[in-house]
């Protein structure tokens, strides 16, 4: 799953807001394929980690109740223009991806 994360971080005064959009089906395992009647296997991101200048600042555990193509945003105090932000995820099938950005 390359290039699944679009991440942006914008400085506002003494803090920076990180916004990320991830491309992922976030399948709950409760839906059925309408044609075959077979249950569609669960496939969703379980862990999300965000680092600021190499130090972990946010980690999240997700269930299948996060919407398809997840969006997440949060604010890091003390982050300034040029700081490195890195985000990575792992899903229930062991697939993973990561992306990085500089605070603008």
């Amino acid at each position, binding site marked *: 799953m390359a290039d699944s994360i679009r991440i942006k971080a914008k400085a506002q005064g003494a803090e920076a807001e990180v916004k990320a959009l991830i491309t992922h089906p976030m399948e709950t395992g409760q839906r059925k394929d309408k044609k075959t009647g077979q249950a569609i296997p669960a496939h969703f991101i379980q862990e999300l980690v965000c680092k600021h200048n190499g130090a972990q600042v946010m980690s*999240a555990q997700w269930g299948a109740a996060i919407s398809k193509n997840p969006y997440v945003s949060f604010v890091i105090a003390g982050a300034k223009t040029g700081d490195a932000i890195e985000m990575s995820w792992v899903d229930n099938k062991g697939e993973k991806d990561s992306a990085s950005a500089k605070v603008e």
Partner: protein
Amino acid sequence: MQRRQFLKGTLAGSAVAVAVGAGLLSPRSVLAAWPTAAFEAKSVNDALSGLFGNTSAADSKDIEIKAPDIAENGAVVPVSVTTKIAGVTGIALLASTNNNPLAANFEFAQSVKGYVSTRIKMAKTSDVVAIVKAGDKMYTNKKNVKVTIGGCGG
């Protein structure tokens, strides 16, 4: 007798297949930190005890939940939580009547402010529950969201 055993065998087998299909038995060894019991809990309280080991969250007006009053599409309900509580170490989001209420648990370092925004699925009209963790204290608030079309069926 043989037929009975055969039926028993196939039924048990298919139950396992369903469980595997639902992701209940998928290999999780790489994700030891993922709190399976909390995410598979059927009630808000069970989810909280699975996640934090207790359910004693104090109601707090200092937690603001922003979510639509009426969500037309339960598959995408934007929710953001803002809190003024000092020393926030985490925010958990639950949809109280979902099959598995726990949607997400965010853990923050000191530098992250008491705010998170994301989008969740809601099966039907229910409360969005936010749990804010500050050290070993837990605070909670909720907001009712009317869902026109559920987001979990297919």
